[in-house]
Protein backbone atom coordinates (compact mmCIF):
# COMPACT_ATOMS: atom_id res chain seq x y z
CA UNK A 1 0.00 0.00 0.00
CA UNK A 2 1.65 3.16 -1.17
CA UNK A 3 -0.75 5.57 0.43
CA UNK A 4 -1.25 5.88 4.15
CA UNK A 5 -4.28 7.13 5.94
CA UNK A 6 -4.29 10.22 8.08
CA UNK A 7 -7.01 10.06 10.69
CA UNK A 8 -9.02 13.19 10.16
CA UNK A 9 -12.23 12.50 11.90
CA UNK A 10 -13.90 9.63 13.65
CA UNK A 11 -13.57 6.56 11.50
CA UNK A 12 -13.00 8.71 8.44
CA UNK A 13 -9.68 9.33 6.87
CA UNK A 14 -7.85 11.10 4.15
CA UNK A 15 -5.37 9.51 1.80
CA UNK A 16 -2.05 11.25 2.04
CA UNK A 17 1.39 10.96 0.56
CA UNK A 18 3.69 8.35 2.10
CA UNK A 19 6.23 10.87 3.39
CA UNK A 20 3.58 12.34 5.66
CA UNK A 21 3.00 9.03 7.37
CA UNK A 22 5.58 9.37 10.09
CA UNK A 23 4.50 12.95 10.61
CA UNK A 24 0.92 11.91 11.29
CA UNK A 25 2.13 8.96 13.30
CA UNK A 26 1.13 8.46 16.89
CA UNK A 27 0.32 12.11 17.39
CA UNK A 28 -2.24 11.79 20.13
CA UNK A 29 0.01 9.60 22.26
CA UNK A 30 2.98 11.91 22.32
CA UNK A 31 0.93 15.07 22.73
CA UNK A 32 -1.29 13.76 25.44
CA UNK A 33 -4.96 14.65 25.43
CA UNK A 34 -6.71 17.82 26.43
CA UNK A 35 -7.90 18.49 29.94
CA UNK A 36 -11.55 18.94 30.94
CA UNK A 37 -11.38 22.74 30.64
CA UNK A 38 -10.33 22.73 27.00
CA UNK A 39 -12.85 20.01 26.24
CA UNK A 40 -15.61 22.05 27.87
CA UNK A 41 -14.64 25.16 25.93
CA UNK A 42 -14.72 23.44 22.55
CA UNK A 43 -17.98 21.68 23.36
CA UNK A 44 -19.54 25.06 24.17
CA UNK A 45 -18.20 26.51 20.92
CA UNK A 46 -19.63 23.59 18.97
CA UNK A 47 -23.01 23.99 20.65
CA UNK A 48 -23.05 27.74 19.97
CA UNK A 49 -22.26 27.03 16.32
CA UNK A 50 -25.15 24.57 16.07
CA UNK A 51 -27.80 26.73 17.71
CA UNK A 52 -28.82 28.81 14.65
CA UNK A 53 -29.38 25.77 12.41
CA UNK A 54 -31.03 23.81 15.20
CA UNK A 55 -33.39 26.71 15.93
CA UNK A 56 -34.57 26.92 12.34
CA UNK A 57 -34.95 23.13 12.24
CA UNK A 58 -37.12 23.08 15.36
CA UNK A 59 -39.17 26.05 14.17
CA UNK A 60 -39.93 24.40 10.84
CA UNK A 61 -41.94 21.74 12.72
CA UNK A 62 -43.93 24.21 14.84
CA UNK A 63 -47.55 25.05 14.03
CA UNK A 64 -47.64 28.29 11.97
CA UNK A 65 -49.44 30.36 14.61
CA UNK A 66 -46.89 29.39 17.27
CA UNK A 67 -43.83 30.28 15.12
CA UNK A 68 -45.15 33.80 14.82
CA UNK A 69 -45.89 34.30 18.52
CA UNK A 70 -43.39 32.29 20.57
CA UNK A 71 -39.66 31.58 20.51
CA UNK A 72 -38.70 28.21 19.04
CA UNK A 73 -36.99 27.22 22.30
CA UNK A 74 -40.35 27.21 24.11
CA UNK A 75 -41.50 24.32 21.91
CA UNK A 76 -38.71 22.10 23.27
CA UNK A 77 -40.53 21.53 26.56
CA UNK A 78 -43.68 19.38 26.76
CA UNK A 79 -46.40 19.39 25.64
CA UNK A 80 -44.77 18.86 22.30
CA UNK A 81 -46.78 20.21 19.47
CA UNK A 82 -44.82 19.41 16.31
CA UNK A 83 -46.36 19.16 12.86
CA UNK A 84 -45.44 18.59 9.22
CA UNK A 85 -47.93 21.26 8.15
CA UNK A 86 -45.29 23.79 7.04
CA UNK A 87 -43.55 21.26 4.84
CA UNK A 88 -46.79 20.10 3.25
CA UNK A 89 -47.74 23.72 2.61
CA UNK A 90 -44.51 24.76 0.92
CA UNK A 91 -44.36 21.65 -1.25
CA UNK A 92 -47.97 22.10 -2.39
CA UNK A 93 -48.39 25.85 -2.50
CA UNK A 94 -44.94 27.33 -3.08
CA UNK A 95 -43.59 25.02 -5.73
CA UNK A 96 -40.78 23.63 -3.60
CA UNK A 97 -41.33 20.15 -5.03
CA UNK A 98 -40.78 21.39 -8.56
CA UNK A 99 -37.87 23.53 -7.39
CA UNK A 100 -36.22 20.44 -5.91
CA UNK A 101 -36.47 18.69 -9.27
CA UNK A 102 -35.14 21.81 -11.02
CA UNK A 103 -32.19 21.94 -8.64
CA UNK A 104 -31.35 18.35 -9.56
CA UNK A 105 -31.74 19.08 -13.29
CA UNK A 106 -29.32 21.98 -12.90
CA UNK A 107 -26.84 20.38 -10.51
CA UNK A 108 -26.25 16.95 -12.07
CA UNK A 109 -25.11 18.16 -15.51
CA UNK A 110 -23.57 21.16 -13.76
CA UNK A 111 -21.35 18.67 -11.96
CA UNK A 112 -20.68 16.15 -14.76
CA UNK A 113 -19.81 18.62 -17.55
CA UNK A 114 -17.05 20.55 -15.79
CA UNK A 115 -15.49 17.37 -14.42
CA UNK A 116 -15.47 15.67 -17.83
CA UNK A 117 -14.17 18.67 -19.75
CA UNK A 118 -11.77 19.53 -16.94
CA UNK A 119 -10.43 15.96 -16.94
CA UNK A 120 -9.77 16.12 -20.69
CA UNK A 121 -7.82 19.34 -20.32
CA UNK A 122 -6.05 18.17 -17.15
CA UNK A 123 -4.86 15.07 -18.99
CA UNK A 124 -3.42 17.20 -21.78
CA UNK A 125 -1.75 19.55 -19.30
CA UNK A 126 -0.24 16.64 -17.38
CA UNK A 127 0.76 14.17 -20.08
CA UNK A 128 0.78 15.71 -23.55
CA UNK A 129 3.40 18.06 -24.92
CA UNK A 130 2.29 21.06 -26.88
CA UNK A 131 3.55 24.59 -27.32
CA UNK A 132 2.36 27.07 -24.68
CA UNK A 133 1.31 24.32 -22.31
CA UNK A 134 2.63 25.91 -19.14
CA UNK A 135 1.45 29.39 -20.04
CA UNK A 136 -2.09 28.23 -20.85
CA UNK A 137 -2.21 26.16 -17.67
CA UNK A 138 -1.12 29.15 -15.63
CA UNK A 139 -3.81 31.34 -17.19
CA UNK A 140 -6.49 28.71 -16.47
CA UNK A 141 -5.41 28.50 -12.83
CA UNK A 142 -5.25 32.29 -12.54
CA UNK A 143 -8.92 32.41 -13.61
CA UNK A 144 -9.75 30.54 -10.36
CA UNK A 145 -10.18 33.76 -8.49
CA UNK A 146 -11.50 36.11 -11.14
CA UNK A 147 -14.89 37.22 -9.81
CA UNK A 148 -17.61 35.46 -11.77
CA UNK A 149 -19.66 38.66 -11.51
CA UNK A 150 -17.65 40.16 -14.34
CA UNK A 151 -18.95 37.52 -16.74
CA UNK A 152 -22.61 37.98 -16.02
CA UNK A 153 -23.60 40.98 -18.11
CA UNK A 154 -21.52 40.26 -21.24
CA UNK A 155 -22.53 36.59 -21.24
CA UNK A 156 -26.15 37.50 -20.59
CA UNK A 157 -26.08 39.60 -23.75
CA UNK A 158 -24.68 36.70 -25.79
CA UNK A 159 -27.19 34.28 -24.32
CA UNK A 160 -30.12 36.61 -24.86
CA UNK A 161 -29.09 37.02 -28.49
CA UNK A 162 -28.93 33.24 -28.84
CA UNK A 163 -32.22 32.71 -26.97
CA UNK A 164 -30.53 30.71 -24.20
CA UNK A 165 -31.70 32.90 -21.32
CA UNK A 166 -34.15 31.11 -19.04
CA UNK A 167 -33.07 27.75 -20.44
CA UNK A 168 -31.18 25.09 -18.52
CA UNK A 169 -28.46 25.28 -21.16
CA UNK A 170 -27.54 28.73 -19.96
CA UNK A 171 -26.94 27.68 -16.34
CA UNK A 172 -25.23 24.44 -17.33
CA UNK A 173 -22.78 26.36 -19.50
CA UNK A 174 -22.20 28.99 -16.80
CA UNK A 175 -21.62 26.44 -14.01
CA UNK A 176 -19.35 24.43 -16.29
CA UNK A 177 -17.25 27.45 -17.16
CA UNK A 178 -17.06 28.73 -13.57
CA UNK A 179 -16.19 25.26 -12.28
CA UNK A 180 -13.52 24.52 -14.88
CA UNK A 181 -10.49 26.36 -13.46
CA UNK A 182 -10.82 24.49 -10.17
CA UNK A 183 -11.47 21.15 -11.90
CA UNK A 184 -8.45 21.53 -14.18
CA UNK A 185 -6.26 22.63 -11.26
CA UNK A 186 -7.21 19.74 -8.99
CA UNK A 187 -7.21 17.00 -11.63
CA UNK A 188 -4.02 18.06 -13.39
CA UNK A 189 -2.11 17.78 -10.13
CA UNK A 190 -3.60 14.38 -9.45
CA UNK A 191 -3.02 13.08 -12.99
CA UNK A 192 0.58 14.33 -13.03
CA UNK A 193 1.31 12.27 -9.92
CA UNK A 194 0.21 9.01 -11.54
CA UNK A 195 3.06 6.60 -12.36
CA UNK A 196 4.54 7.37 -15.78
CA UNK A 197 5.60 3.77 -16.46
CA UNK A 198 1.99 2.67 -16.55
CA UNK A 199 1.18 5.04 -19.36
CA UNK A 200 4.44 4.43 -21.20
CA UNK A 201 3.82 0.71 -21.35
CA UNK A 202 0.22 1.20 -22.46
CA UNK A 203 1.45 3.39 -25.29
CA UNK A 204 4.08 0.84 -26.25
CA UNK A 205 1.31 -1.75 -26.38
CA UNK A 206 -0.34 0.48 -28.96
CA UNK A 207 -3.03 2.14 -26.85
CA UNK A 208 -4.16 5.58 -28.03
CA UNK A 209 -4.11 8.60 -25.72
CA UNK A 210 -7.88 8.38 -25.53
CA UNK A 211 -7.75 4.77 -24.45
CA UNK A 212 -5.09 5.50 -21.85
CA UNK A 213 -7.27 8.31 -20.51
CA UNK A 214 -10.42 6.18 -20.20
CA UNK A 215 -8.86 2.90 -19.15
CA UNK A 216 -5.99 4.02 -16.93
CA UNK A 217 -6.09 7.67 -15.90
CA UNK A 218 -9.78 8.00 -14.98
CA UNK A 219 -10.12 4.71 -13.04
CA UNK A 220 -6.98 5.52 -11.04
CA UNK A 221 -8.30 8.98 -10.24
CA UNK A 222 -11.60 8.04 -8.64
CA UNK A 223 -10.70 9.60 -5.25
CA UNK A 224 -9.89 12.95 -6.84
CA UNK A 225 -12.96 12.78 -9.10
CA UNK A 226 -15.16 12.02 -6.08
CA UNK A 227 -13.82 14.99 -4.10
CA UNK A 228 -14.29 17.25 -7.06
CA UNK A 229 -17.78 15.95 -7.75
CA UNK A 230 -19.09 16.57 -4.26
CA UNK A 231 -17.51 19.99 -4.12
CA UNK A 232 -18.85 21.05 -7.50
CA UNK A 233 -22.30 19.59 -6.74
CA UNK A 234 -22.59 21.54 -3.50
CA UNK A 235 -21.38 24.66 -5.20
CA UNK A 236 -23.93 24.41 -8.01
CA UNK A 237 -26.74 23.33 -5.70
CA UNK A 238 -26.10 26.23 -3.35
CA UNK A 239 -25.60 28.84 -6.07
CA UNK A 240 -27.91 31.81 -6.21
CA UNK A 241 -26.23 34.35 -8.47
CA UNK A 242 -26.01 32.31 -11.69
CA UNK A 243 -29.66 31.25 -11.45
CA UNK A 244 -30.69 34.75 -10.54
CA UNK A 245 -29.13 36.17 -13.70
CA UNK A 246 -29.75 33.44 -16.26
CA UNK A 247 -33.04 31.93 -15.04
CA UNK A 248 -34.94 34.64 -13.24
CA UNK A 249 -37.12 35.28 -16.28
CA UNK A 250 -38.36 31.71 -16.14
CA UNK A 251 -39.89 30.73 -12.77
CA UNK A 252 -40.68 27.20 -14.06
CA UNK A 253 -36.95 26.44 -14.05
CA UNK A 254 -36.08 28.08 -10.71
CA UNK A 255 -33.87 25.98 -8.41
CA UNK A 256 -34.53 25.86 -4.67
CA UNK A 257 -32.12 28.64 -3.74
CA UNK A 258 -33.80 31.05 -6.11
CA UNK A 259 -37.26 29.97 -4.95
CA UNK A 260 -36.35 30.49 -1.31
CA UNK A 261 -34.74 33.86 -2.07
CA UNK A 262 -37.94 34.88 -3.85
CA UNK A 263 -40.00 33.72 -0.87
CA UNK A 264 -37.84 35.93 1.36
CA UNK A 265 -38.53 38.84 -0.96
CA UNK A 266 -42.23 38.08 -1.20
CA UNK A 267 -43.12 37.19 2.34
CA UNK A 268 -40.33 38.86 4.30
CA UNK A 269 -41.10 37.59 7.76
CA UNK A 270 -43.41 34.68 6.93
CA UNK A 271 -41.44 32.14 8.92
CA UNK A 272 -43.82 29.17 8.64
CA UNK A 273 -43.10 29.22 4.90
CA UNK A 274 -39.45 30.26 5.10
CA UNK A 275 -38.30 27.78 7.76
CA UNK A 276 -39.66 24.74 5.97
CA UNK A 277 -38.66 25.94 2.51
CA UNK A 278 -35.09 26.70 3.46
CA UNK A 279 -34.72 23.46 5.34
CA UNK A 280 -35.90 21.54 2.29
CA UNK A 281 -33.26 23.35 0.23
CA UNK A 282 -30.57 22.36 2.74
CA UNK A 283 -31.63 18.73 3.14
CA UNK A 284 -29.70 17.21 0.24
CA UNK A 285 -26.41 19.07 0.87
CA UNK A 286 -26.61 18.14 4.55
CA UNK A 287 -27.24 14.46 3.77
CA UNK A 288 -24.36 14.49 1.29
CA UNK A 289 -22.18 16.25 3.81
CA UNK A 290 -22.75 13.68 6.51
CA UNK A 291 -22.40 10.66 4.25
CA UNK A 292 -19.41 11.91 2.24
CA UNK A 293 -17.70 14.11 4.80
CA UNK A 294 -14.21 12.82 4.10
CA UNK A 295 -14.45 13.56 0.38
CA UNK A 296 -15.77 17.00 1.19
CA UNK A 297 -12.92 17.74 3.57
CA UNK A 298 -10.40 16.37 1.11
CA UNK A 299 -11.79 18.51 -1.69
CA UNK A 300 -11.44 21.56 0.51
CA UNK A 301 -7.91 20.70 1.56
CA UNK A 302 -6.99 20.05 -2.04
CA UNK A 303 -8.39 23.24 -3.42
CA UNK A 304 -8.34 25.80 -0.70
CA UNK A 305 -7.73 28.44 -3.32
CA UNK A 306 -11.26 28.15 -4.62
CA UNK A 307 -13.56 29.23 -1.83
Amino acid at each position, binding site marked *: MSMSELPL*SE*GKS*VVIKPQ*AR*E*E*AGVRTLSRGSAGPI*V*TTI*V*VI*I*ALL*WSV*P*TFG*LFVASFMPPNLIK*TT*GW*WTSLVPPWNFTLENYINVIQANGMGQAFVNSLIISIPGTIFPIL*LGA*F*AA*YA*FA*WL*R*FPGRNLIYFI*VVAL*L*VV*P*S*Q*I*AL*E*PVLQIFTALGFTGQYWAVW*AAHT*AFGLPFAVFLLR*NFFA*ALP*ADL*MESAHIDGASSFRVFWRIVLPLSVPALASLAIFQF*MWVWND*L*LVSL*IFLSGNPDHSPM*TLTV*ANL*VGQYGEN*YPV*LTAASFLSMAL*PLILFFSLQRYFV*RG*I*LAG*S*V*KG
Partner: protein
Amino acid sequence: MATLATTERATKPPRRRVQGISWSAWFWIGPVLILLGVFFIWPFIDSIILSLQNNDSTAFVGLKNYQLIFTNPDLLNVLKNNLLWLVVGTLLTVGLGLVIAVLVDRVKIESAIKSALFIPMAISFVGAGVIWRFMYIYEPANTTQIGLLNALLSLVHIGPQVWTINEAFNNFSLIAVYVWMWTGFSMVIISAALKGIPDEIIEAARMDGASRLTMFWRITVPMISPTMVVVVTTMLINILKIFDVVYVMTGGNYDTSVIAMEFYNQLFNFSHYGLGSALAVVLTIVVLPVMYINLRQLRKEERKA
Protein backbone atom coordinates in the same frame (compact mmCIF):
# COMPACT_ATOMS: atom_id res chain seq x y z
CA MET B 1 6.14 19.32 4.69
CA ALA B 2 3.86 20.30 7.43
CA THR B 3 1.37 22.04 5.24
CA LEU B 4 -1.24 21.49 2.62
CA ALA B 5 1.40 19.40 0.90
CA THR B 6 0.00 16.46 2.80
CA THR B 7 -2.85 16.29 0.33
CA GLU B 8 -2.68 15.07 -3.20
CA ARG B 9 -2.89 18.62 -4.51
CA ALA B 10 0.80 19.18 -4.19
CA THR B 11 2.67 17.08 -6.69
CA LYS B 12 5.93 16.84 -8.47
CA PRO B 13 6.24 18.66 -11.79
CA PRO B 14 4.79 16.51 -14.55
CA ARG B 15 7.19 14.07 -16.11
CA ARG B 16 7.64 14.60 -19.82
CA ARG B 17 6.32 11.98 -22.13
CA VAL B 18 8.93 10.55 -24.44
CA GLN B 19 6.68 11.31 -27.41
CA GLY B 20 7.13 14.44 -29.45
CA ILE B 21 4.78 17.38 -29.58
CA SER B 22 1.18 16.25 -29.59
CA TRP B 23 -0.98 18.42 -31.80
CA SER B 24 -4.07 16.50 -30.73
CA ALA B 25 -3.67 18.22 -27.35
CA TRP B 26 -5.69 21.09 -28.76
CA PHE B 27 -8.69 18.77 -29.04
CA TRP B 28 -8.27 17.84 -25.39
CA ILE B 29 -8.13 21.40 -24.14
CA GLY B 30 -10.27 22.99 -26.88
CA PRO B 31 -13.66 22.89 -25.11
CA VAL B 32 -12.11 24.35 -21.95
CA LEU B 33 -10.44 27.18 -23.88
CA ILE B 34 -13.67 28.05 -25.69
CA LEU B 35 -15.73 28.14 -22.47
CA LEU B 36 -13.12 30.12 -20.57
CA GLY B 37 -12.86 32.52 -23.50
CA VAL B 38 -16.61 33.10 -23.51
CA PHE B 39 -17.00 33.30 -19.72
CA PHE B 40 -13.78 35.01 -18.61
CA ILE B 41 -11.64 36.53 -21.34
CA TRP B 42 -14.33 38.12 -23.49
CA PRO B 43 -16.39 39.45 -20.55
CA PHE B 44 -13.30 41.07 -19.11
CA ILE B 45 -12.55 42.89 -22.37
CA ASP B 46 -16.22 43.76 -22.84
CA SER B 47 -16.52 45.07 -19.27
CA ILE B 48 -13.51 47.33 -19.73
CA ILE B 49 -15.06 48.79 -22.89
CA LEU B 50 -18.49 49.22 -21.23
CA SER B 51 -16.88 50.83 -18.18
CA LEU B 52 -15.42 53.58 -20.36
CA GLN B 53 -18.85 54.41 -21.78
CA ASN B 54 -21.87 56.15 -20.29
CA ASN B 55 -24.64 54.26 -18.55
CA ASP B 56 -26.62 53.39 -21.69
CA SER B 57 -23.46 52.65 -23.69
CA THR B 58 -24.03 55.35 -26.30
CA ALA B 59 -20.88 57.46 -25.82
CA PHE B 60 -17.36 57.14 -24.46
CA VAL B 61 -16.80 59.07 -21.23
CA GLY B 62 -13.22 58.15 -20.45
CA LEU B 63 -12.54 57.33 -16.80
CA LYS B 64 -15.60 59.19 -15.51
CA ASN B 65 -17.24 56.06 -14.09
CA TYR B 66 -14.10 55.22 -12.16
CA GLN B 67 -13.85 58.77 -10.92
CA LEU B 68 -17.45 58.50 -9.72
CA ILE B 69 -16.69 55.32 -7.73
CA PHE B 70 -13.92 57.08 -5.80
CA THR B 71 -15.69 60.42 -5.26
CA ASN B 72 -19.43 59.76 -4.90
CA PRO B 73 -20.23 59.59 -1.14
CA ASP B 74 -22.63 56.65 -1.53
CA LEU B 75 -20.13 54.66 -3.54
CA LEU B 76 -17.31 55.55 -1.15
CA ASN B 77 -19.49 54.14 1.58
CA VAL B 78 -19.76 50.92 -0.40
CA LEU B 79 -15.96 50.73 -0.58
CA LYS B 80 -15.76 51.48 3.14
CA ASN B 81 -18.19 48.64 3.90
CA ASN B 82 -16.14 46.26 1.77
CA LEU B 83 -13.02 47.28 3.68
CA LEU B 84 -14.77 46.65 7.00
CA TRP B 85 -15.80 43.22 5.69
CA LEU B 86 -12.23 42.47 4.62
CA VAL B 87 -10.65 43.40 7.93
CA VAL B 88 -13.24 42.07 10.38
CA GLY B 89 -14.32 39.06 8.33
CA THR B 90 -10.80 37.86 7.65
CA LEU B 91 -9.56 38.45 11.21
CA LEU B 92 -12.50 36.59 12.73
CA THR B 93 -12.64 33.61 10.35
CA VAL B 94 -8.88 33.03 10.41
CA GLY B 95 -8.42 33.97 14.09
CA LEU B 96 -11.27 31.82 15.37
CA GLY B 97 -10.29 29.05 12.96
CA LEU B 98 -6.75 29.06 14.37
CA VAL B 99 -7.84 29.18 18.01
CA ILE B 100 -10.38 26.40 17.59
CA ALA B 101 -7.98 24.26 15.55
CA VAL B 102 -5.36 24.54 18.30
CA LEU B 103 -7.89 23.83 21.07
CA VAL B 104 -9.52 20.91 19.32
CA ASP B 105 -6.22 19.26 18.35
CA ARG B 106 -5.93 17.22 21.52
CA VAL B 107 -9.61 16.76 22.34
CA LYS B 108 -10.99 13.22 22.21
CA ILE B 109 -14.24 14.14 20.46
CA GLU B 110 -12.36 16.22 17.90
CA SER B 111 -14.31 14.95 14.89
CA ALA B 112 -17.73 15.73 16.37
CA ILE B 113 -16.62 19.26 17.27
CA LYS B 114 -15.20 19.78 13.80
CA SER B 115 -18.39 18.58 12.15
CA ALA B 116 -20.46 21.04 14.15
CA LEU B 117 -18.33 23.93 12.95
CA PHE B 118 -18.14 22.59 9.46
CA ILE B 119 -21.86 22.01 8.78
CA PRO B 120 -22.54 25.63 7.77
CA MET B 121 -20.17 25.10 4.83
CA ALA B 122 -22.72 22.71 3.35
CA ILE B 123 -25.51 25.25 3.61
CA SER B 124 -26.21 27.78 0.88
CA PHE B 125 -25.89 31.48 1.56
CA VAL B 126 -29.64 31.66 0.99
CA GLY B 127 -30.28 29.04 3.67
CA ALA B 128 -27.82 30.72 6.02
CA GLY B 129 -29.54 34.04 5.32
CA VAL B 130 -32.89 32.64 6.43
CA ILE B 131 -31.30 30.98 9.49
CA TRP B 132 -29.83 34.29 10.61
CA ARG B 133 -32.85 36.43 9.77
CA PHE B 134 -34.63 34.07 12.12
CA MET B 135 -31.96 34.64 14.79
CA TYR B 136 -32.23 38.39 14.31
CA ILE B 137 -36.05 38.75 14.37
CA TYR B 138 -37.15 41.98 16.00
CA GLU B 139 -40.40 42.47 17.87
CA PRO B 140 -41.29 45.79 19.52
CA ALA B 141 -40.15 46.23 23.11
CA ASN B 142 -42.34 44.73 25.84
CA THR B 143 -43.70 42.07 23.51
CA THR B 144 -42.53 38.45 23.31
CA GLN B 145 -39.25 38.25 21.43
CA ILE B 146 -39.26 35.27 19.06
CA GLY B 147 -35.74 35.91 17.75
CA LEU B 148 -33.12 34.23 19.94
CA LEU B 149 -30.74 37.19 20.15
CA ASN B 150 -33.36 39.68 21.21
CA ALA B 151 -34.84 37.17 23.65
CA LEU B 152 -31.40 36.83 25.25
CA LEU B 153 -31.09 40.60 25.44
CA SER B 154 -34.44 40.84 27.19
CA LEU B 155 -33.17 38.36 29.80
CA VAL B 156 -30.57 40.94 30.80
CA HIS B 157 -33.11 43.77 30.44
CA ILE B 158 -31.69 45.33 27.32
CA GLY B 159 -34.21 46.53 24.74
CA PRO B 160 -34.58 44.59 21.46
CA GLN B 161 -32.29 45.59 18.62
CA VAL B 162 -33.01 45.83 14.90
CA TRP B 163 -29.89 43.86 14.02
CA THR B 164 -29.89 44.22 10.25
CA ILE B 165 -31.23 47.76 10.01
CA ASN B 166 -29.49 49.74 12.76
CA GLU B 167 -26.63 51.32 10.85
CA ALA B 168 -24.43 51.44 13.95
CA PHE B 169 -23.76 47.69 13.75
CA ASN B 170 -25.77 46.08 10.93
CA ASN B 171 -22.64 45.43 8.88
CA PHE B 172 -21.31 43.40 11.80
CA SER B 173 -24.58 41.44 11.91
CA LEU B 174 -23.99 40.48 8.28
CA ILE B 175 -20.30 39.71 8.77
CA ALA B 176 -21.31 37.40 11.64
CA VAL B 177 -23.22 35.26 9.15
CA TYR B 178 -20.14 34.92 6.98
CA VAL B 179 -17.93 34.14 9.97
CA TRP B 180 -20.40 31.48 11.08
CA MET B 181 -20.23 29.89 7.63
CA TRP B 182 -16.48 30.05 6.94
CA THR B 183 -14.70 29.59 10.28
CA GLY B 184 -15.06 25.83 9.86
CA PHE B 185 -13.21 26.06 6.56
CA SER B 186 -10.24 27.89 8.13
CA MET B 187 -10.26 25.51 11.05
CA VAL B 188 -10.14 22.36 8.90
CA ILE B 189 -7.22 23.60 6.82
CA ILE B 190 -5.26 24.95 9.78
CA SER B 191 -5.97 21.77 11.70
CA ALA B 192 -4.51 19.67 8.88
CA ALA B 193 -1.38 21.84 8.98
CA LEU B 194 -1.10 21.43 12.77
CA LYS B 195 -1.26 17.67 12.41
CA GLY B 196 1.56 17.87 9.90
CA ILE B 197 4.06 19.28 12.40
CA PRO B 198 6.60 16.46 12.98
CA ASP B 199 6.44 14.86 16.41
CA GLU B 200 10.23 14.95 16.77
CA ILE B 201 10.21 18.73 16.78
CA ILE B 202 7.55 18.85 19.47
CA GLU B 203 9.35 16.21 21.53
CA ALA B 204 12.65 18.04 21.24
CA ALA B 205 11.12 21.35 22.30
CA ARG B 206 9.41 19.70 25.24
CA MET B 207 12.65 18.08 26.41
CA ASP B 208 14.31 21.48 26.21
CA GLY B 209 11.68 22.62 28.67
CA ALA B 210 9.77 24.94 26.35
CA SER B 211 6.43 26.10 27.72
CA ARG B 212 3.18 25.62 25.82
CA LEU B 213 3.13 29.29 24.87
CA THR B 214 6.75 29.35 23.73
CA MET B 215 6.09 26.23 21.66
CA PHE B 216 3.08 27.86 20.07
CA TRP B 217 4.95 31.01 19.03
CA ARG B 218 8.30 29.41 18.19
CA ILE B 219 7.17 26.17 16.56
CA THR B 220 3.50 26.13 15.66
CA VAL B 221 3.27 29.61 14.16
CA PRO B 222 6.35 29.36 11.88
CA MET B 223 5.47 25.81 10.83
CA ILE B 224 1.93 26.65 9.76
CA SER B 225 2.58 30.12 8.37
CA PRO B 226 2.57 28.97 4.70
CA THR B 227 -0.88 27.49 5.30
CA MET B 228 -1.99 30.67 7.03
CA VAL B 229 -1.03 32.66 3.93
CA VAL B 230 -3.26 30.42 1.81
CA VAL B 231 -6.16 30.64 4.26
CA VAL B 232 -5.89 34.43 4.62
CA THR B 233 -5.68 35.06 0.88
CA THR B 234 -8.58 32.69 0.25
CA MET B 235 -10.68 34.60 2.76
CA LEU B 236 -9.67 37.95 1.27
CA ILE B 237 -10.67 36.81 -2.21
CA ASN B 238 -13.94 35.36 -0.92
CA ILE B 239 -14.84 38.48 0.99
CA LEU B 240 -13.92 40.83 -1.84
CA LYS B 241 -16.50 38.99 -3.93
CA ILE B 242 -19.10 38.74 -1.15
CA PHE B 243 -22.61 39.03 -2.55
CA ASP B 244 -25.08 36.39 -1.42
CA VAL B 245 -25.10 37.19 2.30
CA VAL B 246 -25.82 40.85 1.66
CA TYR B 247 -28.36 40.08 -1.06
CA VAL B 248 -30.38 37.77 1.20
CA MET B 249 -30.06 39.73 4.45
CA THR B 250 -30.61 43.34 3.38
CA GLY B 251 -30.35 43.58 -0.41
CA GLY B 252 -27.68 46.22 0.19
CA ASN B 253 -30.14 48.57 1.93
CA TYR B 254 -29.52 50.41 5.20
CA ASP B 255 -25.92 51.20 4.28
CA THR B 256 -24.80 47.57 3.98
CA SER B 257 -23.94 47.48 0.29
CA VAL B 258 -20.60 46.06 -0.86
CA ILE B 259 -18.90 46.22 -4.28
CA ALA B 260 -20.42 43.03 -5.71
CA MET B 261 -23.88 43.98 -4.39
CA GLU B 262 -23.65 47.51 -5.77
CA PHE B 263 -22.45 46.14 -9.09
CA TYR B 264 -25.52 43.89 -9.22
CA ASN B 265 -27.89 46.72 -8.36
CA GLN B 266 -26.34 49.15 -10.85
CA LEU B 267 -26.35 46.63 -13.67
CA PHE B 268 -29.54 44.66 -13.21
CA ASN B 269 -31.80 47.04 -11.30
CA PHE B 270 -30.83 50.43 -12.70
CA SER B 271 -29.36 49.32 -16.07
CA HIS B 272 -26.34 51.53 -15.43
CA TYR B 273 -24.00 49.59 -17.71
CA GLY B 274 -21.11 52.04 -17.47
CA LEU B 275 -20.94 52.29 -13.69
CA GLY B 276 -21.81 48.61 -13.15
CA SER B 277 -19.03 47.44 -15.43
CA ALA B 278 -16.57 49.84 -13.85
CA LEU B 279 -17.37 48.29 -10.44
CA ALA B 280 -16.75 44.82 -11.88
CA VAL B 281 -13.40 45.91 -13.29
CA VAL B 282 -12.40 47.51 -9.98
CA LEU B 283 -13.32 44.27 -8.20
CA THR B 284 -11.16 42.23 -10.56
CA ILE B 285 -8.22 44.60 -10.26
CA VAL B 286 -8.40 44.53 -6.46
CA VAL B 287 -8.46 40.74 -6.48
CA LEU B 288 -5.39 40.43 -8.72
CA PRO B 289 -2.62 41.13 -6.16
CA VAL B 290 -4.27 38.83 -3.60
CA MET B 291 -4.52 36.16 -6.27
CA TYR B 292 -0.84 36.64 -7.10
CA ILE B 293 0.18 36.01 -3.48
CA ASN B 294 -2.13 33.04 -3.24
CA LEU B 295 -0.81 31.42 -6.42
CA ARG B 296 2.82 32.10 -5.54
CA GLN B 297 2.31 30.41 -2.19
CA LEU B 298 0.63 27.43 -3.79
CA ARG B 299 3.47 27.06 -6.30
CA LYS B 300 5.98 27.18 -3.45
CA GLU B 301 4.09 24.41 -1.69
CA GLU B 302 4.10 22.37 -4.87
CA ARG B 303 7.84 22.68 -5.26
CA LYS B 304 8.44 21.63 -1.68
CA ALA B 305 6.45 18.45 -2.02
